[in-house]
């Protein structure tokens, strides 16, 4: 047992170090070529004004967002996988991101005309976040109700996908009735974007992520029991009703906040918890939860770095990169020896 915990401590420290390294790398690489020394100078505000704007207004917020969004989406996925006892659960595949998106669309496409669409007006505020939470929470409750009736993992997934399609149909309909400016804002949002996020927005995202993660971490003990089944949990003393509500709220806050600002990030939520399980070889949430958060930050930083790799001012949408990383993991779960992903 001792040597096991040493190994875990070393892995966790390694993962943390990797996050720091990738964070720095993400700051160094961008569509504008900049020397490392210039980036550092700009960071500590002693460089030329142009460099400082690029680093402080674009690269630093983007890297911070990648860390926050990666950790939040991944832990949201972990919570959903354990709660629904479904290894293929995740905020994107089950329509929770779409639900959050509907909330965002409602605010963007209907409320925007009431305000000026100035940078940092409604998007900066908590309005979008709250709408995204509500949307995410609503889908989460529907999925919960379905999985209480249908034990079959695939059935629940199909319901989630149908929900996502239905929501996107509603959103399309709303787009039809909205003007060009509103539409453009919305379409850019759907592509998943870690940039274009202001500091007030980052502050909101950081607060929401911290709250979501803190709530999630108080639930590690019941989460470990839930892994063994509902009857099991209830007979060892887990108060299921209460636990379920707290977990759903936490997962909705995490996925909803990220989706509100970064758009529906594909496959991070479903894939990262499995990468963390593979790395740490454990199902214990006391280890798995911080491991998942760090792995999520690493993967999203990496995705962001890859997305600006083409150089020459070209940037691939970050969703394309996360899909290319996430889909093989999901395929591995479906086709792996666990067969249709019945197990964790």
């Amino acid at each position, binding site marked *: 047992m001792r040597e096991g915990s040493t190994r875990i401590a070393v892995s966790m420290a390694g993962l943390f170090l990797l996050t720091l390294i990738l964070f720095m790398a993400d700051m160094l690489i961008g569509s504008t070529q900049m020397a490392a020394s210039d980036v550092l100078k700009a960071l500590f505000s002693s460089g030329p004004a142009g460099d400082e704007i690029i680093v402080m207004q674009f690269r630093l917020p983007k890297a911070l967002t990648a860390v926050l969004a990666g950790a939040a989406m991944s832990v949201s996925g972990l919570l959903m996988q354990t709660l629904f*006892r479904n290894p293929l659960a995740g905020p994107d595949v089950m329509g929770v991101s779409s639900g959050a998106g509907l909330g965002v669309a409602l605010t963007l496409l209907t409320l925007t005309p009431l305000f000026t669409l100035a940078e940092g007006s409604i998007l900066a505020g908590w309005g979008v976040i709250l709408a995204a939470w509500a949307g995410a929470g609503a889908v989460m409750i529907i999925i919960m109700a379905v999985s209480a009736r249908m034990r079959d993992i695939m059935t629940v997934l199909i319901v989630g996908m149908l929900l996502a399609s239905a929501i996107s149909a509603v959103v399309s309909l709303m787009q039809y009735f909205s003007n060009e400016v509103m539409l453009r804002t919305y379409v850019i949002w759907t592509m998943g974007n870690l940039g274009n996020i202001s500091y007030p927005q980052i502050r909101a995202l950081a607060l929401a992520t911290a709250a979501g993660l803190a709530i999630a971490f*108080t639930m*590690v*003990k019941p989460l*470990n*029991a839930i*892994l*063994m*089944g*509902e*009857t*099991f949990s*209830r*007979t*060892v*003393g*887990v*108060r299921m009703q209460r636990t379920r509500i707290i977990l759903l709220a936490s997962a909705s806050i995490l996925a909803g906040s990220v989706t509100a600002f970064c758009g529906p990030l594909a496959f991070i939520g479903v894939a990262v918890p499995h990468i963390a*399980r593979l790395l740490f*070889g*454990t*199902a*214990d949430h*006391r280890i798995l939860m911080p491991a998942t958060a760090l792995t999520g930050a690493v993967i999203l930083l990496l995705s962001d770095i890859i997305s600006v790799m083409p150089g020459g001012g070209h940037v691939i949408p970050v969703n394309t990169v996360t899909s290319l990383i996430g889909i093989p993991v999901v395929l591995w779960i479906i086709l792996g020896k*666990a067969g249709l992903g*019945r*197990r*964790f």
Partner: protein
Amino acid sequence: MRRGGVIAETRDLEIGYMRKKTISVMKDLSLRARRGELVALIGRNGTGKSTLLRTLVGLQPALAGEVMLDGRTLHETGSSQLPRIVSFVSTEPVAVRNIRVRDVVALGRFPYTNWIGTRTESDNIAVIAALEATGIAALGDRSIDSISDGEKQRTLIARSLAQDTGLLVMDEPTAFLDLPSRYGIVSLLRRLTREKGKCVIYSTHDLDTAINEADRIWLMTGDGVTEGAPEDLMLTGSLARAFESPLLSFSVNDGTFSFIRGRQNTIALEGRGKAAKLTTRALARCGYTTDPDAPRIVKIYERGHMTEWVVSDGSNEKRYGSLYDLVTDLPGNDQ
């Protein structure tokens, strides 16, 4: 032997479901179980065994009457204290891969650990004791998906034991296990009652072991639950009534069930020992009973370890090298 006090008791209990309307499964159940006792709940499929067990451990509400555990009603005990009084092993399959046997067992300490589940010295002692009592101490560091079904069941029982409750309730702990594992589990349960003074209530379809090993049987039929020592229920004929059908008959002599065969032919048998016993058995399956006066005769010849059967009906004689050849050739063996 002397047994401890009553630990589980139902008073005029009515069990069932509360959905859109209330569906009563059974009512007026007044049952008891004592410390140090192995109680087997038996009954045919669909009589409500799981419902009774789930009501007993507070997983579903009683429709009427009371469940008393350790002298207090479930309500008086409260949901936070209940896991310290009764533990439950359900039929839920284990769907986790990356978890060690030791960690599953340690989940039994859930009611005693702090918010994050840190195990203290006394928790670790309880886990080790549970692993040892169930005979899986060597498997502690193995992952749950690398062990056999029988060992998995032992792991879940060890978890139940680590929960340190006086009453252990188990829903079909021997289902899907092979014969040696089934006996292994039931003798383990019996040992827990004898050595640790636990009361174990388990449901099963395995009548043989229940009748041989249980101190008390709760026999569930459509009319209610009858309780008593296995022999009490054999004496009153309750056991036979519960399971007998046009195809099955119960033998009080050895406490086993056997098929009732259809139309009977007779045949005379000459021979002794194991070969004769097994020949009778094979013949019985084909609708033949033995009768010394029957016109057709089977003679068994044993030379060394070779056995030969000769069937004669007065005029003809035929030899067979195996019972299979013999019975397939018998007239009337077409049922």
